């Protein structure tokens, strides 16, 4: 994985010093809260309901065991011993004090981490496939490009005060696990007719108040032109994106209002003028970064390991877990393990310091000391020998980290909601907990199969509800929490925005409605191979709507 050199380290250290000075100037009254707010936000510090919240960037969701231990330690020193993994592959601490923030950032810098540009109207942390560098279906490791984007976008002087925030996601696989079609810019690596690898560039996707699936602005972009092209898009957006209305300021609105053709014309003109300039990436520069993402020293293995086969046959719980929580690796004899942070009844995405330390230890022992964070708020051990899977299962289970529910109904995405967030209208975590408990029975959950439930506590859609197979949006109805339900959304290569089924329901009715929806699916599906989403696409909204709103 990528290790900082003196340049990277100096920059994050200088950033901490800069922030320390900004805090001092805020406290002395030299700068006002209005002036200070964007400065703290660009360092990931929000003021939430109960305290400050610090959002740590986990670039492209990759962590070393040392970094994860560091995060656990920071969670103990400055928070209450917990961390919350988010849908943007980041980590949030919910109980931070302004007076201690610079110290927390200094501790982060010691483990080559930072909170730079995790908020504010700038280019945010670039996200990617959590299986990058390991997945069997991958064309190329997208993290090389994420790191190149990270460096280019960090402290970009031209793009620090964009009309609105800006999120970029990259997938190196045709099976999109990074939701690239619902980002401001999505990059999909693929091969052109000549066999060269480059990017399909997708622009103007996004969730929030006005959800859009992104549109392709360019089918194939050569690798060396990546930064020139990104800068062209950002330059057009910075100048022509709307600034008169906060809710219309994202690039998706610009693309929607002027149309993708006009957008393409502007971007291509800008690109034509700059593509052979200083941003063109020399091959040796690409190679230098790529060398840092070289695959670990895999053992040459063949056939199915006896330990694995034996455990699969004899240990029922292990078999259940291995079926649900492991994924095919590109290297024979290895598997990718997803660590569920979704034990039924627990807040989705939360991990205690003890759990983080345990995962770090397990990663050291069994997965080359590397951990990934998924946008679905789970963790991943990317390179586990199949013969080690039984031991990994056992070690995870000891820390409540082996719930066999990845991709199932209880593997719910939920934003922090009104329990923490100053923007929320309703709570997300308690309803997620109640729904998950309904699917605790493994037989039923596994029979239902893949079902992505995503919950947001407000229209900003941090919980990605628009692209949930079942989406749940919290609203405030005369001081009471209500929930709107959408069906048929998807975040993958067949991305779709869900359809609203009807009027919002109160908490109890909404939880019941999820059960009803699932029962309706089980009744309507053609076979157990037909997923909830497939059935919905086949039969449409009507039977589901009828079932939920039928007069009792």
């Amino acid at each position, binding site marked *: 994985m990528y290790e900082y050199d003196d340049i990277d380290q100096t920059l994050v250290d200088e950033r901490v010093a800069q922030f320390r000075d900004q805090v001092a100037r805020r406290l002395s009254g030299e700068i006002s809260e209005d002036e200070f707010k964007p400065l703290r936000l660009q360092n990931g510090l929000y003021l939430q309901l109960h305290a400050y919240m610090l959002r740590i960037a986990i670039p492209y969701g990759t962590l070393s065991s040392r970094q994860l231990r560091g995060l656990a330690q920071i969670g103990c020193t400055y928070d*209450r011993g917990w961390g919350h993994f988010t849908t943007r592959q980041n980590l949030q601490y919910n109980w931070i004090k302004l007076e201690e923030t610079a110290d927390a950032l200094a501790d982060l810098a010691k483990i080559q981490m930072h909170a730079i540009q995790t908020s504010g109207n700038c280019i945010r942390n670039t996200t990617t496939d959590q299986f990058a560098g390991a997945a069997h279906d991958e064309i190329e490791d997208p993290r090389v490009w994420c790191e190149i984007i990270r460096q280019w976008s960090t402290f970009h002087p031209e793009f620090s005060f964009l009309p609105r925030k800006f999120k970029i996601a990259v997938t190196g696989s045709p099976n999109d696990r990074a939701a690239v079609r619902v980002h401001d810019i999505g990059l999909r690596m693929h091969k052109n007719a000549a066999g060269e690898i480059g990017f399909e560039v997708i622009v103007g996707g996004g969730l929030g108040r006005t959800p859009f699936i992104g549109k392709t602005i360019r089918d194939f972009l050569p690798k060396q032109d990546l930064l020139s092209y990104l800068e062209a898009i950002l330059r057009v957006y910075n100048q022509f994106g709307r600034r008169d209305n906060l809710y219309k300021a994202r690039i998706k609105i610009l693309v929607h209002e002027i149309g993708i053709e006009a957008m393409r014309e502007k971007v291509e003109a800008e690109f034509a003028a700059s593509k052979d300039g200083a941003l063109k990436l020399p091959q040796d520069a690409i190679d230098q970064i790529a060398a840092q993402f070289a695959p670990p020293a895999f053992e040459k293995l063949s056939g199915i390991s006896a330990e694995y086969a034996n455990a699969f046959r004899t240990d029922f719980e292990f078999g259940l877990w291995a079926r649900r929580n492991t994924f095919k690796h590109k290297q024979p004899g290895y598997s990718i393990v997803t660590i569920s942070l979704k034990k039924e009844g627990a807040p989705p995405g939360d991990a205690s310091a003890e759990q983080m330390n345990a995962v770090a230890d397990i990663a050291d022992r069994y997965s080359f000391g590397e951990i990934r964070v998924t946008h679905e708020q789970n963790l991943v051990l990317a390179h586990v020998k199949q013969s080690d899977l039984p031991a990994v299962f056992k070690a995870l289970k000891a820390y409540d980290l082996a719930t066999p529910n990845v991709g199932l109904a209880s593997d719910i995405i939920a934003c922090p909601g009104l329990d923490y967030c100053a923007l929320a209208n309703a709570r997300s975590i308690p309803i997620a907990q109640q729904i998950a408990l309904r699917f605790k029975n493994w037989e039923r959950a596994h029979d239902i199969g893949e079902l992505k439930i995503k919950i947001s506590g407000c229209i900003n859609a941090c919980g990605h509800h628009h692209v949930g197979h079942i989406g749940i949006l919290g609203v405030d109805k005369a001081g009471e929490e209500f929930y709107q339900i959408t069906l048929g959304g998807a975040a993958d290569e067949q991305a779709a925005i869900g359809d609203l089924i009807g009027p919002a329901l109160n908490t109890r009715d909404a939880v019941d409605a999820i059960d009803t929806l699932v029962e309706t699916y089980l009744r309507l599906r053609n076979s157990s191979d037909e997923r909830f989403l497939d059935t919905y696409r086949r039969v449409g909204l009507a039977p589901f709507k009828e079932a939920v709103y039928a007069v009792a």
Partner: protein
Amino acid sequence: MAKAPKLNSQPQVVTANHLLSGDVVYLTKAASWSRRIADAAVVANVEAGAALLAEAETQAKKNIVIAPYLIPVDASVTPPKPIQYREVLRAEGPSTEKARPAA
């Protein structure tokens, strides 16, 4: 964020977040700040509310708290209970952490 209701002659208190710690605080009768809503100064008319808020704004300018505002409360109970759900959560803490053991 839900819109704050228009306040008339109903019981109300001033709340804010403490600048240094970020903690939820309430303005007391002694014009200081407390983390407990039980200590809050409760007033019950528009003029008194405005005066309380003006005092809080002054303290915000002195960089003690951030963005003070008035909230309606039910003063018939002790301690006074906010009317809006959001403010109940601010007063009592996240509903999710009550069951959680300290790590």
